[in-house]
């Protein structure tokens, strides 16, 4: 048995945000070979907060897309702290369309404080870009796996996470918005974020219990090994389903998330 104390929800929020954590690029380098990055949404610009391209996973071509965060301030400014603009989601959809065409599984790595709330982002259709990414992922006919590697916050995370399988690292968080945002909206005080983190139910363990995610990966030295094994197992089992079955099962997966009462 591990002697390690389980972190509180807010400690997990801080851990999930830590720049000490492996980021998307490090997972890509550790897990895939022949990664070839592709750029641009073909409409406006290349959003550096999203990295995506083609790679091989144990020889199999796959499409990999993830939020990009930096190791230091300079890198973080370049990647906009992992906050994505419409161009980023549109690039992601473009790469997913290619995956669909060439029958490659889609693997996404989620690590974002949320979609970027800026003037340009709103002017260029942030809502529309997120909505289109959600709806496109819902009708892919190739296997898709999303992994929350850090913070998965708001529609900005979900836009890349409507997948056949959703896994979380043990200290990752997945939430409707940041605990600070939640506390300031509901209680008019962002300093109540620790309390918010508790009532929001954002940890991997809580979300697995609710059936909202499919599994949890241990962190630490063996994280790459664990993720590699998970991806191999999931891709093998999803690979047995045909295109229609994949789409149908994914539809059911999200369709059945229902906690309504007095269903008439």
């Amino acid at each position: 048995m591990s002697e390690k104390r389980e972190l509180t929800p807010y400690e997990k929020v801080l851990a999930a945000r830590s720049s000490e954590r492996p980021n998307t690029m490090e997972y890509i380098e550790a897990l895939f070979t022949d990664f070839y990055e592709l750029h641009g949404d073909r409409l406006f610009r290349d959003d550096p907060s999203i990295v995506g391209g083609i790679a091989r996973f144990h020889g199999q071509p796959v499409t990999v897309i993830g939020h990009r965060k930096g190791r230091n301030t300079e890198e973080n400014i370049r990647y906009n702290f992992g906050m994505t603009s419409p161009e980023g989601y549109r690039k992601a959809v473009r790469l997913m369309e290619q995956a669909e065409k060439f029958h490659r599984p889609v693997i996404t790595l989620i690590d974002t404080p949320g979609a970027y709330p800026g003037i340009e982002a709103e002017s260029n259709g942030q809502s529309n870009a997120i909505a289109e990414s959600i709806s496109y992922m819902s009708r892919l006919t190739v296997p898709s796996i999303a992994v929350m590697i850090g913070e998965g916050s708001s529609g900005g995370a979900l836009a890349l996470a409507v997948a056949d399988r959703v896994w979380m690292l043990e200290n990752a968080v997945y939430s409707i918005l940041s605990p600070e945002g939640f506390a300031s909206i509901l209680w008019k005080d962002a300093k109540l974020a620790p309390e918010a983190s508790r009532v929001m139910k954002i940890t991997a363990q809580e979300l697995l219990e609710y059936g909202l995610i499919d599994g949890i990966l241990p962190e630490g030295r063996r994280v790459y090994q664990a993720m590699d094994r998970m991806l191999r197992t999931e891709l093998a089992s999803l690979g047995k389903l045909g295109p229609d079955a994949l789409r149908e099962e994914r539809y059911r997966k999200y369709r059945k998330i229902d906690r309504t009462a007095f269903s008439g």
Partner: protein
Amino acid sequence: MNIDDIFLQRRKRWNSLLQIRKNPPEEMKECPVCHKKIEKALLRGNFGVCTECGYYFPLSPRRRLELVCDAGSFKELDGKLSTGNPLDFPEYEQKLAQNQMKTGQTEAIVTGVGSIQNHRVAIGIMDGRFFMGSMGTVVGEKVARLCEYAGKKKLPLVLFCASGGARMQEGLFSLMQMAKTGAAVERYRQNGGLFLSVLTNPTTGGVSASFANLGDIILAEPKALICFAGPRVIEQTIGQKLPEGFQRAEFLLEHGMIDRIVARSELKETLGTLIALHQPKKKDKNHE
């Protein structure tokens, strides 16, 4: 119309005007923009639009249905669906009860079937006054069921959106409704369904970034606030004041994000015309 009818109508109108005169002050409603006090009956007759400055008052789903659907045609579906407090969020049930008392609605959307200018449609009306029109599991479930119903019955789908975003108290269950509704709308559209989305003030956050902005045709009411991140969040993030009219319907039209802005008084006819344009070719005797 014979002369008696005309007199009868005149008298009715006269009586209603007298009625308005006699009405006590609480029968007046103040416009939040120009502060003019308007008689409620007058406001009602003007589609809930301020007679002075043109401000669009929020409408109850019932009133919206009266304005859009053919009289007596609407039949509600899934009206008894209510939320089960998925996270056991403190005081959520009390808050829901308060919102139910305030609005007379069970949740932030009413869905059903009706007709618009004699075209049968599946229609949903969000209530921005109920929990700020936020989307929790009930809103998500009702939208998804309506899409599936519309798909099965081969009906056009009309959704009037009004939402402050996610239902905070339902946490990730709320976020997942973006995936659920996005997937349901997408499946309906892929199977050939016509989805007309009408964005009303305000359409923001998770509703804006899911089904609301997936319409085959997207209409909006004048000056409606339509955005993902709200103006205050953006101002806090970038530390500067936002330009006048930012994120309003007119701004979105200019930026290519919506098809048309339609006055409330013309919405019924517009929807009817658009639905008719999606019907099979009309037989035209002169061109056969």
